[in-house]
């Protein structure tokens, strides 16, 4: 290629290339940059080429392997033009299908992108929300051109800005344009680029001046610079050429970090081509403008992103920063004036010259003009590179473009600005993204990394991560940075290992401020930011670590141990019984379960399984181990009599009598002979557990219940098809030892009072009367015949066999009791149809997902067009001939002759995010519709029936809950403790059981005269169980085995248990999937398990 001798020569070349444009009818484009290559893009390129060759399609279809399209999560991708069809995650076997359809102008629907919220197919790329909300200007060309072809760049208007500037012949004009555009440095500092250039232009030029492109993109989590260099290196060169022309710079340097091999490869190709074309070197485009650019590769040092350190590195020295002034603009490389800008800044320059400064400045907000590229990564659905106008809110980026959280865990923060930046909590997602707002929120823009963090990210761990990074990358020149980052790391490490005290937090904060004030370069001055910003927004997480020794994200290993155990409110050693099941040692497994849990068969059926939610297998993206199903397997198979109660320390009675230690100072506790008596009010899971534990400690317990039979909510609310009555009764019976006296049919406030109980000689009382009073809709007509609450409805049936539902049944609510009521109604004889009405989307339903699904299978109606989950449900519902309504709220109850005949509802749309992280339902005026109903069941929530307790000296909050000390469950009245749903509002079975256990411990300490509060304990795995002998060697990871259910048709009108048990083979296979997190603590090879927290 001959050198281009003038700007008009360049224009002619472009004209020529344009007129010679590809006439092929179809164009396939695939992204071929690093991330998509890692996902297999080059294999797709080969497959397409092979198909084109073999089918003689080379003349009809063109293939372009271009730069980044941004949707890295979905790579490799294939864009078909002119249709604009966008196929994500393309596999080799999809290629023929896609090409054949494209030739016929069809779409391959099942391969197209499907919106995860609405389930709609996106036929064209720009229908995809990820693209729709973006404004891809700087990145725009990357996705159209092949980086290694300068012709592609020229065809798309490349080097036109340079030509324009050269034709104008006025360098000052270029500086002025950049100044007027308001462009600020995209590397993070936000210094006005035009101003910097003006300063460089004013420097004496006799010794030469340097321009540097800083491509040492060291912020972990940011990769826009790599993408631009890989996908469109000429745009950076053109920007530098314009800069050199404007400022009189003579030499250019691109400093690329060594971790970016493909970027430096593409850049060196671009440099060579630009020289060949006469776009670099002497007499550029036939003018007297000279400028050349050299690439220098870094060698892995974060601090080299700092400009004085970068200069040292360019000079071939250690990359240590130096004192400023003199600033590089006066004395930079080799002591010559030097201006350093970031890759993205350079790539913006041609855009400004092409568009004109005014148009550029019109994008974004005042003082923050233009677009900005962000790398949206971490715990978010659509990871990738996004480009948006400055001033878009964080929430729009995270939810509209990013698609929100990956799984169920809620997003709690984004981290911006890398190690020098900070975290912004979800409560501030309404903030617009610009340099000034982020700084005010305690973070910085940085180069544009946005790392999304959810509930499974520990903020203390994040601070520790960054501090580890910084102590590693501190060059060591300043004492306070070198030692300060090291000490801050050590303090954070202590905190994450359970060795922290509240003083640690104070010291950390003090140290952070000192490091900030006393260091020389940007690295040190911002090194405290990760600590200061997490302390500012997430101090409670630090406090949980140091005071309660808990890591709620289940990240800090020494505080968590095995996450299944830590997640269980009863701290059941799930890992241990899972391992024993794998070995076939079922009786030992039962022993392990029963030691922690007095109601194992019940929990094996109705537990909400926190253990599975926090299973590490799940955290890795696989399905968690089916722990509850394994528990069911064990409890079905082992006779409970194998369990021998473990002796418990402390306590009062016969057991304790054999423990001299436990008896000390306790002889005067009881005025009557024998152990002290304790009253437990409420025989639900909380009361039963408390009674069991107290009886085990040797106390005499009297268990009161208002109903005729113990069981509480287990009996009254949970339907028999989930929890068979004989299982329930047998298990409760087995707990009632000779130390427990049962007094059923006794109502607190009617039959007994607290004063009365103490007068009877009870030394302590545990209140666990649950929450069974239903909230009302507050609509006129709720007292009509045919309207009832879910509690009334369920209890009438479960306890007394009364069927309150008939005809067409409507149920309002989306929680477990709504779904239970729906499924029970479905089974009642006179019911024709059941319709569930929920005001939000089915994704937001608080009920267990599998219960919702089962309900739909059984024919409960659910109607929605909002989420894909629902669409699946609709299919199930259609099969059964029934439906569910979401996004509707009741507004009026219709009656005739004192009896319900229907309900009027209004449809909702989704509004803003509310405090719970869900979108608020907003009524659509005019969308009212009427359903005719014979029965209406209101299931919008329950609260405790705590009215009588007010007169007994107890404090009750607005929601009707009893106020207690959350750690000890002590109420304001001495000797009275409360727990379970009465305190928390409706909660889980296992949560109530844990409250019962805690109450038993507190009562024991109270009666022994010990302080109620116990020091926090960390229970790490301590028993070694040999891991499975065979290494799983399958190609694919084995999939989770869920227990079978009896088919929906045979469930009609039947209360037979729906879920079946696993077979022995299935159980062993499922147990083998466990990652055995415990081995880290128990494996003889890794040394004896020591709990740092326990040592204290």
């Amino acid at each position, binding site marked *: 290629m001959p050198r281009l001798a003038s700007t008009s020569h360049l224009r002619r070349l472009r004209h020529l290339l344009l007129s010679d444009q590809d006439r092929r009818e179809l164009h396939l484009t695939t992204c071929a940059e*690093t991330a998509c*290559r*890692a*996902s*297999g893009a080059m*294999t797709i390129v*080969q*497959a397409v*080429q092979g198909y084109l*060759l*073999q089918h*003689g399609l*080379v003349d009809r279809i*063109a293939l372009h392997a271009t730069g980044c399209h941004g949707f*890295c999560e979905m790579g490799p991708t294939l864009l078909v033009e002119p249709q604009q069809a966008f196929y994500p995650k393309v596999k080799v076997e999809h290629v023929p299908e896609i090409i054949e359809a494209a030739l016929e102008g069809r779409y391959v629907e099942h391969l197209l992108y499907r919106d995860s919220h609405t389930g709609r197919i996106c036929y064209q790329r720009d229908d995809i929300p990820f693209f729709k909300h973006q404004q891809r200007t700087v990145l725009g060309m990357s996705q159209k051109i092949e980086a*290694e072809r300068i012709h592609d760049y020229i065809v798309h208007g490349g080097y036109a800005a340079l030509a324009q500037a050269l034709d104008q012949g006025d360098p000052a004009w270029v500086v002025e344009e950049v100044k007027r555009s308001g462009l600020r440095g995209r590397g993070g500092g936000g210094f006005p680029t035009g101003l910097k250039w003006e300063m460089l232009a004013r420097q004496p030029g006799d010794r030469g001046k340097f321009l540097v492109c800083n491509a040492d993109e*060291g912020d*972990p*989590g940011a*990769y826009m610079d790599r*993408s631009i260099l890989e996908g469109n290196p000429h745009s950076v060169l053109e920007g530098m050429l314009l800069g050199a022309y404007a400022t009189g710079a003579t030499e250019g*340097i691109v400093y690329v970090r*060594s*971790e*970016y091999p493909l970027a430096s*490869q593409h850049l*060196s*190709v671009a440099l*060579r081509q630009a020289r060949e074309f006469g776009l670099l070197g002497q007499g550029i485009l036939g003018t007297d403008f000279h400028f050349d650019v*050299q690439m*220098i*590769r*870094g*060698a*892995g*040092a974060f601090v080299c992103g700092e400009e004085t350190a970068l200069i040292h590195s360019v000079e*071939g020295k250690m*990359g*240590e920063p130096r004192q400023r002034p003199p600033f590089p603009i006066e004395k930079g490389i080799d002591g010559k004036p030097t201006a350093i800008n970031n890759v993205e800044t350079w790539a913006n320059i041609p855009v400004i010259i092409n568009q004109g400064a005014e148009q550029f400045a019109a994008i974004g907000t005042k003082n923050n003009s233009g677009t900005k590229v962000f*790398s949206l*990564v*971490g*715990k978010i659905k659509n*990871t*990738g*590179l996004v480009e948006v106008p400055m001033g878009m809110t964080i929430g729009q980026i995270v939810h509209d473009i990013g698609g929100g959280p990956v799984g169920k865990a809620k997003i709690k923060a984004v981290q911006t600005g890398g190690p020098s930046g900070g975290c912004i909590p979800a409560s501030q997602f309404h903030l617009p993204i610009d340099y000034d707002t982020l700084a005010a929120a305690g973070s910085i823009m940085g180069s544009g*990394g946005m790392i999304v*963090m959810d509930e499974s*990210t520990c903020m203390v761990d*994040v601070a520790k*991560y960054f501090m580890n990074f910084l102590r590693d990358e501190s060059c060591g020149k300043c004492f306070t940075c070198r030692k300060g980052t090291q000490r801050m790391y050590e303090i954070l490490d202590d905190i994450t290992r359970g060795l922290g005290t509240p003083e640690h937090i104070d010291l950390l904060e003090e140290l952070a401020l000192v490091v900030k004030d006393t260091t020389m370069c940007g690295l040190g001055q911002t090194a405290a930011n990760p600590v200061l910003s997490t302390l500012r927004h997430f101090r409670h997480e630090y406090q949980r670590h140091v005071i309660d020794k808990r890591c709620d994200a289940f990240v800090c290993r020494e505080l968590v141990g095995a996450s299944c155990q830590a997640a269980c409110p009863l701290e059941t050693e799930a890992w241990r019984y899972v391992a024993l099941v794998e070995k076939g040692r079922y009786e030992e497994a039962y022993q392990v379960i029963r030691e922690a849990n007095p109601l194992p068969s019940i929990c094996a059926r109705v537990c909400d399984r926190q253990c599975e939610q926090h299973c590490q297998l799940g955290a*890795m*993206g*696989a399905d968690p181990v089916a722990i509850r199903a394994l528990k069911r397997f064990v409890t079905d198979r082992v006779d409970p009599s194998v369990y021998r109660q473990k002796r418990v320390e402390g306590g009062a009675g016969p057991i304790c009598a054999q423990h001299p230690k436990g008896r000390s100072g306790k002889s005067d506790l009881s005025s009557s002979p024998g152990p002290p008596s304790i009253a437990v009010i409420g025989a639900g899971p909380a009361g039963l557990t408390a009674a069991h534990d107290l009886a085990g400690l040797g106390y005499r317990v009297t268990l009161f219940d208002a109903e005729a039979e113990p069981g509480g909510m287990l009996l009254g609310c949970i339907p028999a098809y989930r929890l068979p009555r004989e299982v329930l009764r047998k298990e409760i019976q087995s707990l009632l030892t000779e130390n427990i006296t049962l007094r059923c049919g006794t109502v607190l406030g009617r039959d007994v009072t607290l004063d009365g109980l103490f007068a009877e000689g009870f030394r302590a009382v545990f209140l666990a009367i649950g929450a069974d009073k239903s909230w009302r809709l507050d609509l006129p007509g709720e007292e009509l015949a045919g309207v009832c609450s879910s509690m009334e409805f369920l209890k009438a049936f479960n306890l007394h066999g009364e069927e309150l539902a008939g005809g067409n049944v409507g149920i309002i609510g989306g929680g477990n009791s709504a779904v239970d009521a729906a499924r029970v109604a479905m089974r009642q004889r006179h019911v024709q149809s059941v319709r569930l009405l929920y005001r939000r989307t089915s994704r937001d339903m608080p009920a267990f997902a599998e219960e919702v699904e089962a309900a739909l299978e059984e024919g409960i109606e659910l109607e929605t067009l909002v989420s894909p989950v629902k669409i699946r449900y609709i299919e199930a519902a259609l099969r059964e001939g029934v439906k569910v309504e979401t996004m509707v709220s009741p507004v009026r109850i219709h009656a005739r002759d004192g009896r319900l005949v229907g309900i009027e509802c209004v449809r909702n749309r989704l509004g803003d995010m509310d405090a719970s992280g869900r979108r608020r339902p907003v009524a659509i005026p005019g969308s009212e519709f009427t359903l005719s109903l014979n029965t209406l069941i209101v299931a919008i929530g329950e609260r405790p029936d705590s009215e009588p307790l007010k007169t007994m000296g107890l404090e009750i909050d607005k929601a009707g809950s009893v106020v207690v000390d959350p750690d000890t469950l002590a109420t304001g009245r001495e000797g009275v403790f409360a727990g379970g749903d009465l305190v928390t509002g409706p909660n889980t079975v296992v949560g109530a059981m844990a409250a019962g256990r805690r109450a038993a411990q507190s009562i024991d300490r109270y009666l022994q005269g010990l302080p109620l509060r116990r020091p926090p304990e960390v229970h790490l795995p301590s028993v070694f169980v040999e891991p499975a002998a065979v*290494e*799983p*060697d399958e*190609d694919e*990871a084995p999939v989770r085995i869920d227990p079978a259910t009896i088919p929906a048709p045979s469930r009609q009108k039947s209360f037979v248990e729906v879920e079946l048990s696993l077979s022995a083979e299935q159980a062993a296979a499922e147990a083998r999937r466990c*990652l055995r997190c415990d081995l880290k603590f128990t494996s003889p090879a890794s040394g004896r398990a020591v709990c740092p927290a326990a040592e204290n």
Partner: protein
Amino acid sequence: MAGVAEHAVDEQGILDILQRHSTDRGGLIAVMADIQAEWGFLPEEALRIVARASGRSLVDVYGIATFYSAFSLRPRGKHLICACLGTACHVRGGPGVVEEIERQLGIRQGETTPDGLFTLETVNCLGACALGPVVVIDGHYFSKVRKTQVRRLLDDTLAGRAGKEDGAGRLVPLEVSCPRCNRSLMDPGHPIEERPSIRVTACFDDQYGRVRFSSWYGGNGFCAEPEIPSGHTARLLCPYCHEELTGTDACPACDAAMAAMLVRGGGVLRVCSRQGCSGRRLDFP
């Protein structure tokens, strides 16, 4: 140490590298990068030669060698595993993957297995954040790596399968001809990888010989008679018209000239002329 012999440093090689970088910027960093590319690490002897020949003090040289994390003063294993611990990989479970690699190999990060097969290093960010956790083994990127995949990745690496898509079905069979005389360059008499090979004349060191390579696009079968030393380039000629198969493009991987051949059905196959470089590309103009 057993490995000493193979790490022997020839002074001329070092001086050549110094010479190559005598004019460009970057100085010692570029020199050391090249030395490391050649020997896999920075041998002490090499650093002494660099200091002597460049006139810089050994302290300066050592300072640079230890300041930058890309440089290693210890020999590295046959396979280099580089696990990303950038923020995005960190929050997606990168540390667990590193721990699993450490457990499987019985070494800590920064160490090499006693058998010299694996070196495990970590890096602060590879810029493939959307696909975390990322592990790079011998230059092949693996995305969204799970702990449970580690064993297989290591086994595949040992078996030479890592990063290679399996099955010849994914390769494209090519038939090529000389762009000048249009005669077929296919040689059915000497199949490579069970297909007729592509045969061209190679001119290296004023000697003429034959080069045959696989006619699978994506295949890497190759043989040259007489042998061409690795890293050297040869001129590739048509065996019939003896014209050089010149193309305008340089190899994207190594910058050497690429030979161009016409592909039956349309398109141009470009092959790098450097011995040992796998640079090939198929273009449909």
